[in-house]
């Protein structure tokens, strides 16, 4: 297979986007094309556009959105597809971009992830996201992603002694990181004491889905992120030295959460990371920085174990000890994560890759991990039923 690298990144400010869905997707795409040094219209050389979105059709009423985007950017006659794989749509689109180039079908591909969820109310957004659960055994019950996360958190607490404060520690760390990320949604650092131990804590930080509280869960955000992928042997010159996609792994698990044999395990996270490591020829010890899918803070803890950073049942202890901070031994979610950077679902997987590229290029400013050479992203779909992991590196091919 041909080696594939990333030569351009773009990212809108996450939060509320007041323009249209297409404006948002095109803004991120334009920034990535500019970053790479690709000029639209004449000789742009973009063979294919993948647009990841979970709700373009359902929420924004735009079907086949990639066709609209490719024309908005005047990248015709590039091939175009919209990619929908729940909240893992973003990383799925990166994977498809990788496959398109590695197979030899394309030389240069634009990958965009975009989601505009704040045009609907919070409870409509909750309902929209819940449509990825099982249509008979889960969704009609009113079960939502926070409900599954709450039940998962309780099992984790019972089995491993994770506390509400541990979840808050992870959240506060991510909020602190987001203060150094200009594109982050939330620019406010919660006070750990205020949200955990203060007399007012139960009311100002209420339960969303017991034992999960407001400050243990991510916000609803709009946003878009984009990447330019190219074949390393294409001979084309770009503005940036490529960051190589060294490994791509994906795995599925039971669609129905209750059917899992071991309810505290996230099999698809473990398996997708294993495949990505194997393809890259590395192990978890080689990862310098990681973006993990912390839609709920328990997921950052559990994923940090499943990808092999810490032994099972000790992720919360590592967080307590500061090991996952920017200056720790395994920095996680330097971007602010889904918790503070925001979680426009279909854009998240692309956004995670943008952050790792910035880290590996040394462009991460106040949140830069010194000397980072290899990074990992984990993009989590459903409640862990479809997970995509990607390894990125600036090291030479082994």
């Amino acid at each position: 297979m041909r080696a594939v690298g990333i030569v351009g990144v773009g990212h809108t400010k996450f939060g509320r986007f007041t323009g249209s869905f297409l404006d948002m997707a095109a803004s991120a795409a334009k920034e990535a094309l500019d970053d790479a040094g690709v000029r639209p219209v004449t000789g742009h050389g973009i063979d294919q556009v993948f647009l990841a979105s979970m709700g373009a059709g359902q929420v924004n009423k735009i079907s086949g959105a990639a066709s609209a985007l490719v024309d908005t950017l005047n990248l015709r006659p590039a091939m175009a597809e919209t990619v929908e794989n729940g909240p893992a749509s973003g990383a799925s689109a990166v994977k498809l971009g990788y496959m398109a180039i590695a197979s030899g079908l394309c030389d240069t591909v634009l990958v965009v992830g975009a989601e505009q969820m704040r045009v609907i109310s919070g409870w409509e957004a909750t309902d929209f996201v819940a449509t990825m659960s099982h249509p008979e055994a889960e969704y009609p019950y009113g079960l939502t992603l926070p409900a599954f996360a709450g039940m998962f958190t309780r099992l984790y607490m019972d089995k491993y002694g994770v506390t509400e404060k541990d979840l808050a520690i992870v959240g506060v760390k991510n909020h602190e990181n987001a203060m150094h990320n200009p594109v982050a949604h939330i620019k406010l650092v919660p006070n750990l004491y205020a949200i955990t131990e203060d007399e007012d804590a139960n009311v100002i930080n209420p339960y969303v889905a017991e034992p999960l509280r407001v400050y243990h869960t991510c916000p609803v955000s709009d946003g878009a992120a984009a990447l330019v992928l190219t074949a390393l042997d294409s001979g084309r010159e770009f503005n940036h030295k490529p960051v190589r996609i060294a490994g791509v792994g994906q795995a599925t698990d039971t669609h129905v959460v209750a059917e899992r044999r071991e309810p505290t395990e996230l099999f698809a996270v473990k398996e997708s990371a294993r495949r990505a490591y194997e393809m890259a020829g590395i192990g978890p010890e080689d990862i310098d920085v990681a973006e993990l899918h912390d839609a709920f803070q328990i997921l950052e803890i559990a994923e940090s174990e499943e990808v092999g950073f810490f032994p099972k049942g000790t992720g919360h202890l590592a967080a307590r000890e500061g090991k996952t901070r920017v200056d720790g031994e395994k920095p996680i979610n330097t971007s602010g994560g889904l918790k503070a950077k925001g979680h426009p679902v279909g854009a998240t997987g692309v956004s995670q890759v943008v952050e790792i590229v910035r880290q590996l290029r040394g462009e991460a400013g106040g949140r830069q991990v010194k000397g980072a050479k290899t990074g990992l992203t984990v993009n989590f779909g459903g409640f862990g039923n479809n997970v995509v992991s990607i390894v990125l590196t600036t090291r030479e091919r082994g």
Partner: protein
Amino acid sequence: MYAYKCDACGELHHPKHFVCRKCGGTDFTETPLEGEATVLTWTKVYNLPEGYMKPYLCFVIARFDNGLTVSGQINSEQPVTGQRVKAVVGVVKEGVGRDFYGFIFEPAQSVA
């Protein structure tokens, strides 16, 4: 509500699958899924999605005595892990022209 029993090996499934997870069999017989179960985990959800005009609702993942594990609502203000519950089938969501039925668990002692 039914469990789907593999005709070849007897493995129970819920919801319906087209291929048995254990033996690959493709023929199933519907068997009523009812009786007592044990709560494995639970949550009380306060931000319900569109369509639920309630401040909160409790959910459980519970294991039937036959080993099958399902999600459901529970009629209890404060479920407890390990609690014995009884499955009742009821309307879990009111739809326009079509209601959705599913498991609503009750604490076992209150269903004499």
